[in-house]
């Protein structure tokens, strides 16, 4: 299947002095897709976006937009537009003048024509009738929309979004998130969205690239990213996860299913990367993938409930493993359905999971990564 590629990065590296912000990054973004770059702050994602926009020049490597190499093309000549983190609306102009700014620069168009296009763009983001408003008379969400309209009116090949939802409150962020996704589907413009907020990346994207320390860790659709993390970093950064450390690979059950000894208890999981018997390993298990049964059963691991955190639709049950040589506890998320187990603190339970639901990786130095759950 040959798909048209809108943005391509080939071995792009960016250094600031001794510091390597982006390290040999390559990827392709198909036309019309919603592509997110997800990473913690300082991971190099902003630098990456600024290189696509043209505000930074790669130290080495090439950037292509719409098949054209754009390394030497200044930002005002690139077929991409950016929605800035702080929106960067022009406070000295009204809404209409903000939206027509790019059209006026382009020229070759009558004033009436520009206004018609601008009004169209404003209507598309749901801002009819506010053309004459000053920027500071708009709410945060409305400003967000003006920033989108200002870029979209130019019909860019690629729209770059630098975490523009970050400054909104939770409710508004949720609704803008959906709106943005619908807008992207409607316009068919390629969106490149950078964020440190995984819920946004997972919910909106066709493809997510996880970046850490300037390197791409994994590029995959959200679901694959969640179920099949490619690296230790992705497993710990994306979604909630139980991270069981200080394990050792003791056995291979199948080609890609290993048994990891965690504090004396053998636990099964998928080998997330190449592992050998005797290797140290960390095991990641999603809390919602663990089955919890009351009482002692032979086909699982014995546990004792130490804490229950009710959270509406589900509860987070913290289970200690009494058979472990060192204290180990596992978070289990249970849905409050009709046949959900009726657990109480102190209950003896058995937990189990399909080996497919756990991922094992070599341990890495984790000092820089935010802890999860």
């Amino acid at each position, binding site marked *: 299947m040959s798909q048209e590629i809108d943005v391509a990065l080939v071995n792009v590296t960016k250094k600031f002095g001794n510091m390597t912000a982006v390290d040999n990054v390559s990827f392709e973004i198909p036309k019309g897709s919603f592509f997110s770059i997800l990473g913690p702050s300082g991971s190099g994602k902003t630098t990456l976006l600024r290189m696509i926009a043209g505000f930074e020049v790669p130290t080495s490597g090439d950037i292509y937009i719409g098949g054209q190499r754009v390394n030497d093309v200044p*930002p*005002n000549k690139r077929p991409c537009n*950016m929605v800035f983190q702080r929106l*960067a609306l022009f406070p000295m102009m009204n809404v209409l003048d903000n939206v027509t700014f*790019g059209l006026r*620069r382009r020229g070759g168009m009558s004033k009436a024509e520009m206004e018609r296009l601008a009004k169209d763009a404003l209507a598309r983001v749901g801002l009819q009738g506010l053309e004459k408003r000053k920027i500071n008379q708009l709410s945060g969400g409305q400003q967000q929309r003006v920033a989108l309209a200002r870029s979209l009116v*130019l019909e860019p090949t690629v729209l770059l979004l630098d975490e523009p939802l970050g400054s909104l409150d939770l409710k508004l962020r949720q609704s803008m998130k959906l709106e943005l996704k619908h807008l992207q589907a409607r316009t068919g413009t390629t969106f490149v969205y950078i964020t440190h907020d995984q819920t946004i990346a997972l919910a909106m994207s066709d493809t997510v690239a996880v970046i850490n320390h300037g390197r791409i860790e994994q590029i995959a659709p959200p679901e694959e990213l969640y179920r099949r993390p490619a690296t230790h970093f992705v497993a710990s950064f994306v979604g909630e996860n139980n991270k069981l450390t200080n394990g050792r690979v003791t056995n291979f059950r199948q080609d890609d299913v290993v048994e990891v000894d965690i504090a004396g208890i053998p636990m099964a999981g998928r080998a997330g990367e190449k592992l050998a018997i005797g290797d140290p390993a960390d095991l990641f298990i999603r809390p919602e993938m663990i089955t919890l049964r009351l009482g002692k059963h032979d086909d699982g691991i014995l546990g004792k409930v130490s804490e229950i955190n009710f959270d509406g639709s589900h509860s987070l049950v913290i289970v200690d493993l009494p058979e472990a040589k060192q204290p180990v506890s596992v978070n289990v998320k249970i849905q409050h359905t009709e046949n959900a187990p009726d657990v109480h603190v102190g209950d003896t339970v058995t937990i189990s999971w399909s080996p497919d639901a756990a991922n094992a990786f070599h341990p890495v130095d984790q000092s820089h990564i935010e802890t999860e759950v």
Partner: protein
Amino acid sequence: MSASARRRGLWLLLIPMLLWIGLLFVLPHLKLFYLSFISRRGGEFTLANYLYFFQNPLYRKIFVRTAVFSTLVTLLTLFISFPIAFIITKVAGKSLKAMLLLAVILPYWVSELIQAFTWMVIFRESGVLSYLLQRLGIVNQPIEFLYHDTTIAIGLIYTSLLFMTIPIMNSLETLDDSLIEAAYDLGGNFWSTLREVIIPHAGPGIMVGSIMTFMLNLGNYVTVTLLGGKNSLWFTEIIYNQFIIRFNQNKGSAFSVILLTFSVVFVWIVLKITKQDLSEAM
């Protein structure tokens, strides 16, 4: 504390400022205004002091020259200051920024009088510039650079550069860099970004700087007299002559009132034309 006591406290704090403005600004100007309508000999009410100005073509010409010259110098100062302010606030790195700022401020550690003398050392016939040109073989006899309009302009620009640069710097400081980037991103170039984003944002700063510079130029005496000599033909010199040389306080007062009225009206008109609000600009 009761509200009235608090109010009394507030007035008490305001007293030094009120005294300052009242005794050193309002009273002298009222006196000036009064004197300008009084005849020198008889002490009765007269418009003669003003008529003397309007009937005398030399004074009128000098007045117009002073106004036009001040305006031009203000514009020149703006053109020189704006790039300096822009480079200091937006382009320069931290250490260069401090250095440039120091270079702008340093000349003001000496008084205007010393500044003018320094220029004289450079520009006079036996001065540094003339000497250098001769040594380099560009000219073969000493040249007098003093007492030209250009020299006066250089001196005036130098004395008011800081008063233009600082307000513009202040206004540019609050300009979010991403606005400039956004303008470029949307297809803008240097000129359109300057015209539509940077200058509108810096407008109040430009206005404050221009008003201060214009006032300083219009009312300048030391620099103009020392660098321009007899050729300077500056209106403040006329006022000085009336007060000090001819002991004619009444004519001097009338001339002062004319200058003051002109500068206030002129600034007001410029503010109206550029649609700036004085309180906002300040």
